[in-house]
């Protein structure tokens, strides 16, 4: 078989119009040089290298391991077909297939990209992020919480007296957690309370004022402790920002990801949890209450208080806790199964002290 090619000898840029005759043993390239002298060059097919990427209507090859490299370029359709059909190492069958029906290939590839993107965004990233949050060492979790706390508290006015009393109350509670708990009361009209990873809980004064009993307070603390112990905060941050970082990295903007993370520290106090995480926190909170021999009805009562407030105003704390009605129902049900409890007098005493401080 022989085909039309352009031959370059690697010494000058002269284009030699040549014929290449191929066989399994060698490729013979024949052309006439400047002095009309016929020249024939032989290539070992094993040493022929594909010079470039798939381009329609063009093939080019280089030859040899040492400089200068000889090269042929050809747009001879017969040669292109011959290469595509019989030289696997010189052409990629996947590329040939993809370029055969272009429209279909593009649709197929785009669907592939969208599929991988969705799978990563909704499944792989959250799984990896949650896994990462679960395996992070305790010290790192605490350090991170401290960092966020430092940034957030610059805008908060703490009620030192109430904080101290609340801390005494929490210390008195029987909570066998991994993280040392530190609680704070912040002066604010907002009906909010939030937990930070590593053991910090901030309760806003207006919410504390609405709480009537130590059981309700314990329900709130128990719920927040659950978020801390189960690393909900960290898992949530990892999930939320994993997606953002994924998108940033995808578009090659690593700096952007860092900026997003740093700029949004304030949002950490207002993260919304999924319903399943909230339920997990409620059940865990009830367990803590049970450990402390407290009437579990404190939990549904707390929700009732919050529900009432919803009609007046939509506080952040509530808007992030969907299906309050459901939560009242299932906590009530669990509470109804509780055997009669004796009064926890120590906690009652500490609770009264808090009441006086706010």
């Amino acid at each position, binding site marked *: 078989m022989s085909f039309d090619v352009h031959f370059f000898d690697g010494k000058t840029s002269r284009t030699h119009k040549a014929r290449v005759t191929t066989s399994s043993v060698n490729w013979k390239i024949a052309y006439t040089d400047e*002095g009309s002298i016929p020249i024939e060059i032989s290539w070992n097919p094993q040493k022929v290298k594909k010079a470039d990427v798939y381009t329609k209507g063009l093939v080019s090859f280089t030859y040899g391991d040492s400089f200068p490299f000889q090269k042929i370029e050809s747009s001879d359709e017969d040669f292109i077909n011959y290469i595509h059909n019989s030289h696997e190492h010189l052409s990629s069958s996947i590329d040939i297939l993809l*370029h055969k029906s272009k429209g279909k290939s593009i649709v197929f590839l785009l669907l592939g990209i969208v599929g991988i993107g969705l799978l990563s965004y909704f499944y792989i990233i959250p799984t990896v992020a949650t896994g990462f949050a679960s395996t992070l060492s305790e010290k790192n979790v605490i350090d991170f919480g401290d960092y966020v706390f430092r940034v957030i508290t610059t805008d908060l006015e703490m009620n030192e007296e109430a904080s101290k009393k609340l801390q005494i109350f929490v210390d008195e509670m029987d909570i066998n957690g991994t993280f040392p708990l530190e609680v704070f009361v912040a002066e604010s009209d907002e009906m909010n309370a939030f937990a930070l990873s590593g053991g910090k809980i901030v309760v806003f004064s207006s919410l504390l004022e609405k709480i009537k009993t130590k059981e309700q307070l314990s329900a709130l603390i128990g719920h927040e402790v659950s978020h801390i112990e189960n690393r909900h905060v960290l898992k949530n941050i990892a999930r939320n920002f994993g997606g953002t970082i994924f998108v940033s990295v995808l578009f090659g903007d690593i700096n952007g990801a860092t900026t997003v993370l740093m700029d949004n520290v304030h949002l950490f106090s207002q993260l919304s949890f999924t319903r399943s995480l909230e339920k997990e926190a409620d059940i865990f909170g009830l367990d803590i209450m049970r450990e402390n021999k407290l009437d579990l009805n404190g939990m549904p009562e707390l929700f009732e208080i919050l529900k009432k407030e919803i009609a007046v105003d939509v506080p952040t704390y509530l808007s992030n806790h969907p299906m309050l009605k459901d939560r009242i129902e299932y906590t009530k049900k669990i509470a109804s199964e509780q055997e009669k409890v004796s009064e926890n007098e120590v906690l009652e005493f500490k609770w009264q002290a808090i009441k006086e401080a706010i």
Partner: protein
Amino acid sequence: MVVKCTENNDTCKTRNKIALLNVTTKIEFMEIISERSTQKTSLKYLGGGTEFAIIFFKNIILTLLSLGLYYPWAKVEMLKYHYQSTELDQARFSFHATGKEVFRGFIKIYVIFILLYGFLFYALQTQNQVMMVSAIGIFYLFIILIVPFAIHGAVRYRSSRSSWKGIHFKYLGDRTEFFWLYMKGVLLTILTLGIYGAWFQVDMRKYIFSHLRFGNLSFNFKGEGADLFVINLKFIILFYLTLGIYSFWFYRNLVRFYVDNTSITQNGKEVKFKTNMQAGDVFELLFINGLLIVFTLGIATPWVTVRTLNFFFRFLEIEDDLDTNAIQQASYDDYDDAAGDDLLDFFDFDLL
């Protein structure tokens, strides 16, 4: 004319030889003439949007599936496509880089940056003021110092891996020399609050071009910093006055400045590059590119890339005097370190 000679007539034989030689020379000469007359000295970009889209999307998928590890191969394949689609005198350009080389470069860059970031984060978490300030200082100093090496490495690697008609490019610049040129430029730019920046850019370009070879051809850039400064200054003033519309003229001026001041020297003769791009052309390019990107949510990116390259080469001309068949191969610089090229990629800075 060749006549039949009697056996012993030497004079006749010699005459015939000369006549034959004349004919051959004439034929050859005619061939050259015909080749020269059909020869096109404008560069053409022949890439197709749909064809490139397949390559582009295929590489995105492979990069995603490999968690980014495939990126070097993807980058090389896409660059190879653009080179192979660029034609001059009926021959295509070739890019000989390999994914392996580029990957090795990336590993180097990532190791350096992981160490650097590790050091930075370690220093920040100590909360020690002196430590923090010096760590940030060292971090930025390192980035400033590494850039000239990256540019040098990138230009050398790209040149070494680029060829046309089998003739390779080669960069002969000296790393230390370029480093000092760069440091001088950075310092003067800082001291003059950025004004020197135009001269700095021109100095770098002059240095790089004067050390660039293509076989036995050499390059030259003779733009002046003052001209670039005026172009930039006009842009700053007129951008706001014209509510941004001046951008198209600015872009045209910039391209003209860079292209029209570039020349090739072949056997002592200077051959110039030229572009006849108009502001209207720039407007058309950017306006349609913008529409394509916005209305397809970015899917049109490969078509936009092809349009842009096609646009750029459509207006790029080389003066007729370039003898594209007489370029001699010079020595070859087998430089396989792609780290510089990768670092510029890391900084989102592309060489053209």
